[in-house]
Structure formats: structure tokens, C-alpha cells
């Protein structure tokens, strides 16, 4: 990533798991959606900001060995789809974890971590990752 603006406009989601909730049907969405795929026109103008719970459990996971350049310092590293306490499935990295200790159902919580940086002089990108619940 290199666009500062592109990263900046997603800070609420990336820092604070801010998604949306449809005021019509109550469905929760993360990442945010401006349009409820279920209610469509009935939901227009009724999408509200919604902060997704920061705690949840591992729904599925993998340990990545073939890492993208931004994570060459972390490989091998774990990723997961996490089901939050309010039932939202979110994909993210799993940090500070002993790789052979991960299991489906493991309790985790979202923290803020560095995701990437645009070289030594560019901006640092921060966003959520999950860590084992203390």
C-alpha cells in the first residue's frame, strides 16, 4: 500500500473495528457497508455505525510460510478468521502466539499492530490483529 488517503479513510475500521449495522434488519457488517445487501432500498439511509466486539474465538486459521513482502520479518505467521462475541466473522493476523498452540475455538482479542510500512521513509500502516486472550 502506498496511498496515505486510502489507508486514512479506513482508520475507524482498522483501528477500532467500526463497521455498520442495518437499521432496517439489524444485520451487522464488518467492514462497513453503505448499503445493506439484504434490505437494499429499504435499508438506504438507515446504516448506522457499529463497533464490533473486540473479543471472539478462532473460527479457522492457517500458518503462513510463503509470506508477502510486508511480513517477511514475521514469517512464519498465523492468520485466522475470528468469530467475534457478536457473531461477526473477521479475517486478520494472529500475533504473539505459539504457532503449535492455535486451535479452532481459541479465545482471542483484537489489538492494534503495525501491518506494513512504506519503506523506511514512508508511512507506517496500523490496524487490528488478534492475540490470545490474556
Amino acid at each position: 500500500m502506498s496511498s496515505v488517503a486510502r489507508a486514512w479513510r479506513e482508520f475507524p475500521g482498522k483501528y477500532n473495528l467500526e463497521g455498520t449495522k442495518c437499521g432496517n434488519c439489524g444485520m451487522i457488517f464488518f467492514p462497513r457497508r453503505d448499503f445493506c445487501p439484504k434490505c437494499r432500498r429499504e435499508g438506504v439511509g438507515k446504516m448506522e455505525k457499529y463497533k464490533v466486539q473486540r473479543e471472539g474465538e478462532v473460527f479457522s486459521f492457517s500458518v503462513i510460510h510463503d509470506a508477502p513482502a510486508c511480513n517477511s520479518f514475521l514469517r512464519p505467521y498465523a492468520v485466522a478468521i475470528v468469530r467475534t462475541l457478536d457473531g461477526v466473522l473477521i479475517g486478520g493476523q494472529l500475533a504473539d502466539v505459539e504457532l503449535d498452540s492455535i486451535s479452532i475455538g481459541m479465545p482471542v482479542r483484537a489489538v492494534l499492530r503495525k501491518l506494513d510500512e512504506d519503506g523506511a521513509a514512508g508511512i507506517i500502516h496500523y490496524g487490528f490483529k488478534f492475540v490470545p486472550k490474556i
Partner: protein
Amino acid sequence: MREVAIIGVGATKFGELWDRSFRSIGIEAGTKAIEDANLSGNEIDCLFIGNMSAGRFINQQHINALIADYSGMATNNIPATRVEAGGASGGVAFGQAVMAVASGVYDTVLVGGAEKMTDLDDTSINTVMDATADADWEAGMGLTLASLYAMIARRVIYEGTATREEIASVAVNSHFHGALNPGAQFRKEIPLETVLRSGPVAEPLGMFDCAPITDGAAAVVLCPLDEARKHTDNYVKVSAVAQGSDTLALSQRRDITTFGATVAASKKAYKMAGITASDISVAEIHDDFSVAGILALQDLGFYRKGEAGKAFLSGETRVGAGKIAINTSGGLKARGYPIGASGIAQIAEITEQLRGRADKRQVAGAKYGLAQSVGGTGSAVSVSIMEAI
């Protein structure tokens, strides 16, 4: 709507084609297909090309114009359109071309697929592949495409619908057939242990669970069914083209062990063709990652959930062994996976099977053949059915 026929197919060898450029492989495949259809090329009145990412692989946009130009078709000023749908680019391009003929707007249509991947380094190639997932919320969060499929595999194993060995046997099946295909990237059978012991890419998936990086191109020529015999005796009928969509990000779905887009597209395709899954005797499925083969056989209705893995492991998906032969070309895993070309290469393989020209990998008496092409983690799926004449 007119019925549509495939009257010619062509493909380059798949592999690391260091001495070949994008335009050179694209033209080779197209020329072969036109030759196979006994045409001069001047009959072609519309061109489609499936290509995922020439913009990032070779820094060339507007490849529809490039191919029209270098194939000589720009001299006739025919329309040329590039189609992109991630890994399903070729399959979706085929669907567009079939509809162009079926609608009566165009008569003789060339649809190609091409990808030149090896001009980019491996890490960058993976980054391009990862961009077929959600760039902001999957790739941008450090998830790779391989890891998304790995999480599908983890879930499949956890839910008990396939074992690790069964998942790995998808690659064994593809390599078995790849050994029989002179155009394949890998022409070598592999034992199950090779897959299981291959270096980890994204656990539980290893190197041999993943389709390779490949250069290659394929093309087919279409015309109205009732005009096919004017050109050739060796043609097949396109019985159905269908396409389905799903969420861009895998985590937006409640169940990640099935691709809803495959289920929807195949249902529609069977209805269009007036057949059921049990009528299909040969299929090319999108095994970019081994586990995708398990999902495909179940979602296409060939096997019930929990049965696809057993079929692969027992070897009954091999040519001549069971009710349906899967990936006789070698699939994406062994034939190679030049992304935008794969969907068209699948159509070419099914056409050869239904014309009885698949040589050592020929499925005897094949009447119906199916091709499934997948973009991202099942966010776009095309399903096409061909029928022998």
C-alpha cells in the same frame, strides 16, 4: 437465442516460457484455434480475451487492443474486449463470447485467454494473486490467497467432510493426468506422500497443494451450431454457460466449506442443458488449491458432502476409473495455471474429450463435459457444459 458450437481449439504449451512474450503466446493459441476450425481468420467478427492482470504482470493495460493488433484482426477493425474476473477470467470470457454468438449479434467469435506471469518475481506474483481476495480487508490485513484456501481446508477437516490425505489426493489426481498431457507444465505422477511432505505454504496446505506459476494461452472459436458443419465435422455443442457470484471476502460468508457461486452456476447450467450432474462424464475443475477440488465436486453435485475426498483418494476420479473423470488435462495443478488462460484451456480440453481427440487421457464415449472456473475464494464462478455431436 441461437445454439452455439465450438469449431476450433488451440493452446500453447503451459510452463515457464522464458523466451516467449505475452503477445507471442496469445497469437500462437489464437492461430492454432483458427487453424483447427479451418478458417482463414477473416471470418472472425468479434474477439474476447480473458486475462487477469497483464497490468501488473507485464505493466500492459489495454491488452484487447494488443491482441487484436498482433493477431491481424485490427486490420478488420473488429470489436475486441478483455474480460477480467480474477481466476475465472477465462471462463467468464468464454461465457461472454457464447452469448455474443447466441444473441445473433456476432457469428464467428474467437475467445482467448492468456497470462504471462514469469516476467514478475515470485513474491510480486503472489501479491497479484492475493489481490483477487479483498485487497483492503484480506490481503491488506496480511492474509494471502493461499491462507484463505488453507482456512477452508482447516474447516473442511474440522467439520469432517474430508481428511488431509483426501485433500492432498486432489493434486495426485491432477498429476496423474498431467503425465498424460504433452502440453502440461508438470508431466510427472506424484505419490500422496509428495503432497503431504511438501514444504508448507499456508498450513495445512503445502507447495504441492498449490497450482504453479505458469505462462500460457488458449483459444477457442465459436459459431452458430447450425453453421458449424460448413467449417468442420469436428465440433461440439455448447449446452450451457452459467455464472455465479458471492461475497468478495471469504469471511463474509457463514459457511466457508461450500462455494455458493458454484452451486448456483451449476444448477443454472444443468437446467439450461436439460441434464443432471450424473450425465457429466468428464469435468475440468478449478484446483488452484487442492481443497478447491473437494468443494468443486460437491458443489457441482457430482458427489455428496463428505464423498468427494474419498473419490479422489480412491482414484475413481481418474480417466477410465469411475463415473466421472476429473481434470484429465492435469488441471490447474499439473497442466499449469496461467490465470486468465485456464478457463479457456479447460474448454479446449473438454472439447478434445468430446471430439475423441484426447489421446491417452481420452474418456471413452464422453457425451457431456463440464468446465468450472473460479475467481478469488469463489467470489466468481463460471460453469460451462459442452455436448458431443
